[in-house]
């Protein structure tokens, strides 16, 4: 057993874990963060994606002990404290970017990271950026649409430029 400490969705947790415990198991089984899900056992599907100190990782490919001292954000911690949804969450809802919703936590977290890296991605950049996150329901088209919509609303949420104000009108609600 190893003592680790991490902040998950704004709350600090100190736990003894077995060295082989995966981060996703720790999140789900120990911390009750069951919003993050497991879709495979070969690190292929991306369902388990979380932000580890701001960058997206597949939490099934990281050991809990490797996350010692880290700041983890899961799908459960993405909305604001008042419950206000993150623009990516809103966009997935508005653009019908989910059906069964199983891939959605990972897809949303990966999209958040993608937009941090590239606030104005092309279709192709989105499709390539999300390549590690599989969805069996949507055919990805509305997911791409959602990421575009989120990008637009995140850019325009800083209401400084005239283009920003103009673009805001295009966001469907």
């Amino acid at each position, binding site marked *: 057993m190893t003592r680790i400490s991490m902040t998950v969705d704004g709350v600090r947790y100190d736990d003894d874990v*077995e060295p*082989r415990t995966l981060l996703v198991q720790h999140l*789900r*089984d120990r911390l009750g*963060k*069951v*919003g*993050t*899900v*497991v*879709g*495979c*056992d*070969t690190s*292929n*599907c991306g*369902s388990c994606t979380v932000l580890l100190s701001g960058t997206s990782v597949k939490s099934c490919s990281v050991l809990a002990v490797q996350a010692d001292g880290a700041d983890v954000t*899961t*799908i*459960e911690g*993405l*909305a604001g404290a008042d419950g206000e*949804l993150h623009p990516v*969450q809103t966009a*997935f*809802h*508005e653009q*019908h970017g*989910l*059906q*069964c*919703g*199983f*891939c*959605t*936590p990972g897809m*949303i977290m990966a999209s958040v990271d993608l937009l941090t890296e590239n606030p104005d991605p092309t*279709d192709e950049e*989105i*499709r*390539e950026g*999300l*390549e*590690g*996150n*599989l*969805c*069996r*329901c*949507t*055919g*990805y*088209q*509305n*997911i*791409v649409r959602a990421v575009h919509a989120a990008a637009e609303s995140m850019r325009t949420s800083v209401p400084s430029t005239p283009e920003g104000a103009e673009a805001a009108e295009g966001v469907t609600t």
Partner: protein
Amino acid sequence: MTVTEQRPSGEVGRDRRRKEDARLITGRTSWTDNLSLPGMLHLAILRSPMAHARITGIDVTAARGAPGVVDVFTGPDIADLQGAMPCIWPVTEDTVLPVYPPLALDEVRHAGEPVAVVAARDRASALDALELIEVGYEPLPVVLDMEAALADGAPLVHEAAGTNRCYTWILDSAQAGTGGDVARAEAEAEVVVRRRFIQQRLIPAFMEPRSTVVDPTGDQITMWSSTQVPHVLRILLSLGTGMPEHKIRVIAPDVGGGFGGKLEVTPEEFIAFAAARRLHKPVKFTESRSEAMLSAHHGRDQVQDITVTARRDGTVTGMSAKLLANMGGYLGIIAPGIPILGAFMYGGIYKFPAYRFECTGVFTTTTKTDAYRGAGRPEATFALERIMDELAAELDMDPLELRRRNWIDSSEFPFTTAAGLTYDSGDYAAATARATELFGYDALRQEQAARRASGDPVQLGIGVSTYTEMCGLAPSRVLGQLRYAAGGWESAAVRVLPTGKVEVVTGTSPHGQGHETAWSQIVADQLGVGFDDVEVLHGDTRTSHKGLDTYGSRSLAVGGIALVNACQRVVEKALPVAAHLLEADPADLEFAEGAFRVKGAPGAATKTMADCAFAVFQSHDLPDGVESTLDADATYDPENFSYPHGTHLCAVEVDTETGMVKVRSYVAVDDVGRVINPLIVEGQVHGGVAQGIAQALFEEARYDEDGNLTTGTFVEYTIPSSADLPDIVTDRTETPAPGHPLGAKGVGEAGTIASTPAVVNAVVDALRPMGVTDVRMPCTPERVWSTIVAARAAGGEGR
């Protein structure tokens, strides 16, 4: 009273954003694997590494002593408790129904078959202990190829059956009196085209692995399961294990996709059920993805020998389909019936005067097959649409022109086909006209000609698929004739609460389709209440005691009518209450725009459903004989299937030097009848087309010669990612389904059914000048390239 057709709040047809999303986008979803009960034990299953073997002994001593382990058991240990897996669709009188123990007793018949189970305090301990179990196997010969399995002297999958033939099912229009004789059509034909098509084995690959939690309390037992069919599961648990039905509660909480893959009652569910009863403790089993790929049922896997006969002018005169269908090592609950669901569709939208279908189900030492999105109908549509293209090539005719000459004209409905189905509606010309316009058909044909002429190494191919399907499963009477054990009705209950809010209980069991949203839209219009005032409950046999669940594009087409009927009963119940409140004669009232009012008296006083609900709740002065409730339920059994249709067009670029196929454009124009929520319908088409493209270009479950699955991960199976799939253009035409109060036809499977042949037709079209007349699915670069090489060697024109 009259109930007018008017939809006061106009919810039906609106692009409502889904109610389901709120929990799914915030991680507040109830997946079965999220559930944890006090004292719950975790199960792990040891699976056979052999495709076919006799079990000579199992030693669990070491595993029993491992840390955290509470119990280890084998098939013989739970022989009395585990029951047997049911098959509810023996399609013929003599269908072979082998004994199918959930946990193997003495023989295994596919790699991945459950052999022993560990119950431990946590999952990791259970998995660790599996490695301590010693199993002795005496190898038996594997049987992988269907034709080899049927040959004389072939090793038997089920010794006791004496054969690997499960059944042979025949539909012949000459014998049935629904059409002519195919042999005669062939003798008289000016043109005969024959092809063998291979429907490769697919894996449904729902994203949420299957999971089940079982909680025994006294003589009752509750099962949560990641299933499409909680109602079917409850009945079959009872029939299969002998536990009385009323003591069993089944809950399908949020379910992460199914596509037919969770239209199953599984050995894992039966094993967990038995374990909970043996240990008197709650248990959980969640499969790994590797286990899901290996042992959750597969789909397709058919060999299709197709013959079409025609006159030189393109008029088709006969269609014959002879199939081998791989059942795998055991029978899934409806496995024998899957090809039969396609049996009526090999004629599609064309007027074939003579028709014959024959299918033989075959046992092999592979994972069992069963429903996968479309179930029998994609296979039929593929074979038909592919051979129509081959016939067009033979006649040197444009494939669209050949289809035009043969399809049923919109003036000819209702139309009874040689397969004996009566299509109720459709307008194939309208859908095709719209699709060709969006696609730019003529311009693409010109570009294709130019590329051919210039010898461009990247050739353009155009693929057509004009499909129809039978869905809305299903009229119970027809299911009875087909020897299916259950009916095809659906049920709904509507309860108006005292404050005017509405609870709806549906017998359908969604897993991504958005029923909570669409059903709310329907009820809002029917009862004149707000969209947000409706709550839809599903998937729990305690609240929804009656239902037949979700598959076969049936939920709206069948369940939607039950829902409308239940709503109308509520309106009828509210009528005397409203009349009483308005001090009017019930006969003088109408229910329109969400309220009761005196007919022909605009501006007169009205009473809403909420007014009636509160009056009923109080019941202070209801008229004599009026019941204190505004609840109603309804069960609906369809008289016919519904027949969505459409035209899908696909353009591909094929690099003839590498074999690489790129979908350049894809247009889907579907006619699914009246649409409740266009956003949801478009999403269903996107996902359906994606899965159809996946069959055409990417996916195949493969076995090595020892019967081991070699495509056991997402990467090996090559499930497409966002980078692999194109954007598609969708549109709709709308011919409402006659006889359906909502005019809806069903959309869940349409995209998958239509798209696979459109893509493969495009690939073959690109290569036809090189002498290519077929490319086996999936059309991977390697396969396309080797097909080109073979065609060139055989003396095709080359480019």
